[in-house]
């Protein structure tokens, strides 16, 4: 970890030195950016820094400071990285500006699917999509003569066969860490079972047949996982796959590149990508589509906004996407999806829904993340778990002013 941080620092220092190397213009307005710190953001940020005068804060907990930092006047950052979920508080607080005029001036390279429109105004520019799709060990599946599972019943069958063969320690891996991660897995499956999260007026609708089915499926899947699955986050599952401890996982596409990294992966060339399995035979893939993108703060001068937008465009240009094509599935013009993108393409083609980000969903995600582990550890029945999730949600939503 420390090593990679130092390496990244050295790298960014090295790229920052020959300033304006690959930037089309010389930026003279001091700018600051804030975003998450995963590989795609590192690539985009260092492309932005090539324009000069760009300072960056990259932090996996950026969402805890971003709303407050942009609400300040003048805003502490001009360029703010978001995802569909983290865009919500910025929209609610009205701290980011519409980008349509800037797009007309400088955004010729943007494709229409990159524009995140709210009420007809473009509020953010998406740069990549991310979703969880099936990653599996091609060699093991071939050896045992198992077809790539299309739905979760087939996943269970395959896991059973793999377990019997003893080729890996655990057949399955999943990001079931209690909190946000397990909530996300629940939402994926729940949407896959065609469940509705909310009724009218932000009333919760989790206590449903789809909810019970989702919990039972999660429990069934967990039998084939490392018993410590309630602490498994994305990095943990990525390592399990890289070290050959598990044979398949429905994992973030942004982690696919790491499988082919010779320095840390023992399974280079052995991992296949497929669509996320559906919750039931014939259903749509049980996974939600996420995106990452860029917003520009409202509480800054127009001159700063101008410069910020131009720098951001340099950050997400074709050149950057081509140079870093393994990082993530870029939405940028000129990017050609490689074999690692197959799972994303297949999932999206088969109708994976967008993640339903909203203020209410934030409260719901927290309630689910804290509630589901009680079912997994056997403390509560499925019905009682769903009831207490609704209860928790109601408490949170009332406090937030979403429910009367």
């Amino acid at each position: 970890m420390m090593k990679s941080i130092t390496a990244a620092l050295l790298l960014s220092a090295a790229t920052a030195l020959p300033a304006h190397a690959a930037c089309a213009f010389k930026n003279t307005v001091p700018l600051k950016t804030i975003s998450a710190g995963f590989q795609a953001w590192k690539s985009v940020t260092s492309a932005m820094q090539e324009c000069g005068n760009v300072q960056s804060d990259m932090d996996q907990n950026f969402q805890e400071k971003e709303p407050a930092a942009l609400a300040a006047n003048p805003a502490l950052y001009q360029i703010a990285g978001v995802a569909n979920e983290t865009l919500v508080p910025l929209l609610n607080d009205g701290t980011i500006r519409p980008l349509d005029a800037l797009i007309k001036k400088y955004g010729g390279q943007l494709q229409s699917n990159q524009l995140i429109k709210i009420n007809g105004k473009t509020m953010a520019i998406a740069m990549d999509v991310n979703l969880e799709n099936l990653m599996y060990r091609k060699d093991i599946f071939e050896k045992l003569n198992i077809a790539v599972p299309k739905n979760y019943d087939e996943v269970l069958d395959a896991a059973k066969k793999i377990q019997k063969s003893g080729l890996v320690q655990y057949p399955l891996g999943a990001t079931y860490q209690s909190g946000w991660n397990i909530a996300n897995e629940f939402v994926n499956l729940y949407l896959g079972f065609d469940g509705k999260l909310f009724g009218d007026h932000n009333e919760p609708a989790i206590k449903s047949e789809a909810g019970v089915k989702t919990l039972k499926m999660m429990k069934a899947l967990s039998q084939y996982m490392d018993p410590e699955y309630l602490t498994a986050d994305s990095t943990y599952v990525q390592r399990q796959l890289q070290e050959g401890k598990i044979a398949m996982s429905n994992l973030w596409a942004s982690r696919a590149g790491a499988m082919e990294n010779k320095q840390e992966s023992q399974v280079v060339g052995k991992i296949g990508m497929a669509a996320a399995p559906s919750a039931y035979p014939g259903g749509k893939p049980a996974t939600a589509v996420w995106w990452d993108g860029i917003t520009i703060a409202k509480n800054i001068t127009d001159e700063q906004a101008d410069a910020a937008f131009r720098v951001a465009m340099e950050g997400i240009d074709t050149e950057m996407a081509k140079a870093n094509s393994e990082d993530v599935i870029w939405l940028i013009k000129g990017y050609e999806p490689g074999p690692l993108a197959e799972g994303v393409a297949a999932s999206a083609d088969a109708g994976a829904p967008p993640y339903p980000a909203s203020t209410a969903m934030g409260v719901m995600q927290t309630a689910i993340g804290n509630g589901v582990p009680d079912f997994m550890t056997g403390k509560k029945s499925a019905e009682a778990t769903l009831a207490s999730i609704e209860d928790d949600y109601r408490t949170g939503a009332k406090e937030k002013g979403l429910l009367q």
Partner: protein
Amino acid sequence: MKPRIFLFFVGPSLFLMTLFIAVPLVSVFVQSFFVTHQVFHEVTTKSCSPGFMKQTCTESTRTEPVLGPDGVPKTETHFVGLGSYRSLLKPAAVKAAFSAAGNGIGDLLNIDFYRALRFTLTFTLVTLPLVIGFGMLTALALNNVTQAVRGPLIFTFLLPFIITPIIGALAMRWLFVGNGIMADALNGLLSQHFAILAHGWSLELLMLFFRVWYVAPFAFVIFYAGLQTVDRDVMESAIVDGASRVERLRYVIIPHLAPLITFVALIHLMDAYRVFEEIIGFSSQAHRISLQWLTYDLLVPDSSGNRAISRASASSMLTLIGIVILLIPLLRRAWREHLGRG
């Protein structure tokens, strides 16, 4: 000392204590009775989100904040009285748990607050005697070793206390996780696979062990220092009177160290009741949570920017009340000792 000079000396500390302890405390106390939130209304909007190489646009009824005249979202503050305390303590659910249809204690411990309280109390009360006991034992043992090796030994015993607790907890977790060294050794010994971090009870034992390992050196140092001040004459006369080792410990050493034992117990109760590092370090949220973690979880905004400040304030007030209740017997004891000496 003249009152004026006394005031002159304590004035700065009084001022700083008011500023950094009393004011925040009052502010948290007040916040626990109020809820501030944005005002929302429902609007039908069209929003577009990227699919893969094409866009998905949906028209939906969304809940959006109402903007004030200056473009800033409107907020409202309500007085909710004990509402936030109620949503933590859930009196209705407690009543249901102990009604005819309920499951009694089992149901009670499924409510977050009581689950956290149960763990916090067990954690505090089980580690307390162990910390004092091990601290005392090491201090006595070391007091009987030859002078030459005492220095290096004290240093070694102090090491756990020097490590930042969160780092220590993480390090211990890595020893016992899945294929960690200790986990593998234990599995070899048991000749079957046992996942320590997958069971609430084994996780709890590990957390207790970690806290004792971490704090016992603190108790040890205090007691060791105390042992250096035991009156030699009293000790020698006890020996002359034929007191055995145990009797000397019981009637001379322990009474001499009593104020220090109270002090260590006070500090440890306050620290252990705020148990937090272990929860994060051992990632035990799915199995065990503490009161302090509950406050933290309510306070940290989720990715959509929601945070429950009012409930978090109520939760910290409840933690404070808990600590005060726990400390009353010890404070009374310390007060009596103080009077006795005076």
